[in-house]
């Protein structure tokens, strides 16, 4: 009886779990040209199948973080008026180093590395 049940239940449960999709591992992406990215701005960049937010601070420095809010998975944006990274879903706020400073987010945003090569801005995972 148990064996029969297992023979029926196991294939169903196994079927319900989606197979892992083979993803091309992205090491770095080109986010754009330095001259095209305004100071004091934020842009969402596609990093593989994940969104990353590229921040260009008022002093011209770049920083990049995972754009997925650590609270409940919404995609964050840059709020120029507040000078913070903001999540519209539950009003979570992060400073420009990715640190959670207000609202419900429990952790900082994961940081990415930004390298300027010539005129290109490249984003890559931190080792």
């Amino acid at each position, binding site marked *: 009886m148990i064996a029969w049940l297992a023979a029926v239940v196991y294939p169903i449960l196994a079927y319900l779990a989606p197979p892992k999709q083979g993803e091309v591992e992205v090491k770095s992406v080109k986010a754009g040209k330095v001259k095209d990215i305004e100071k004091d701005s934020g842009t*969402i960049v596609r990093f593989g199948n994940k969104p990353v937010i590229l921040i260009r601070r008022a002093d011209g420095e770049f920083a990049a973080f995972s754009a997925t809010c650590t609270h409940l998975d919404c*995609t964050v944006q840059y709020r120029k008026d507040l000078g913070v990274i903001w999540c519209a879903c539950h009003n979570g706020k992060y400073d420009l180093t990715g640190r959670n400073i207000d609202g419900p987010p429990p952790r900082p945003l994961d940081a990415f590395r930004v390298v300027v090569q010539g005129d290109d801005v490249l984003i890559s995972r931190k080792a």
Partner: protein
Amino acid sequence: MWKRLYDWIDQRVQLGGLMEFMGKKYVPIHAHSVWYYFGGVSLFLFIIQVVTGILLLLYYKGSEELAFESIQFIMSKVKFGWLIRSIHSWTANLFILTSMIHMFSVYFARAYRKPREITWVTGMLMFFLALAFGFSGYLLPWNELAFFATKVGTDIPGVIPVIGKPIMVFLRGGEDVTGATLSRFFGFHVAVFPAIFTVILGIHLLLVQRQGMSEPMNAEANPHTEKKTMPFFPNFLLRDLLLWLIVLNLLAVLAVFFPWELGQKADPFAPAPAGIKPEWYFLFMFQTLKYIPGKVLFLDGEILGVLLFGFAGLLWTLVPFWDRKSNRGERNRFVTYLGLFAVIYIMILTIIGWVA
């Protein structure tokens, strides 16, 4: 001719017992009788959902590339498509509203007490399914708001330790909200939930027929006072039908003058839009999650929120089993205060969420 048809059927399936049962069915009349109608109205709205849902299925395409465009097609090209879709969306909201009123009226009247515990539990299961219908149906147009609502909604079970992640992956059909999530939600919305709902609804209605309408506790406490009643067939049923007609008119007015918006197509690489909020029936939970800080003692804020709402839902569903006083016919003030707290809390947080 009707007589001949009746006789023909009666000879084969013996309708006599059923007719006798229907003839003896009475509805109690008292100051709170008006609440009896909300169960019937909810049933009517469910029927409208089934009919309009089947009509939408004729044109809807459940895929990431085509879902949004197919709803656009329904609303702009199909004759009366805008009306069917708008009625489906409005009915979904009214269905949850009337179910909620029905649930609270049953709660405050203690109609869940012995012997109607199973009726209450089946009602609660249907209410949770109604929320699941709302949540899964919300994603189907594949618009911006739905995309983020689904991200948040499916991430919430994901915060539960150990079992959370597999549940999230099961719901999403992967790690992220993608076309795979849409396919799953489409399947849940049009096949899994209706099938389960229909079975539970059958049990619920059967129990209501079998046990009759619950009477208020004070009426039961005075068995010698004369009770006013109304025959179910045809008096109560005709009143029910009249109300259904009024609700249908209301729906038509809402659908025509306030057509349901479609919004922007979902873009997984766009930030969540400012002012994003879920449907009104999830607003109180959404607003609560905004207030819970990131860390409360050793717990993540969202885990605390999930645990609190989970516990409250369980406590509410199991009320017939812990409210022993009402089962004995005694007044239980705690139940009243708890119910009032729930109503006031939901209303205030919903209003704040709405205005914010």
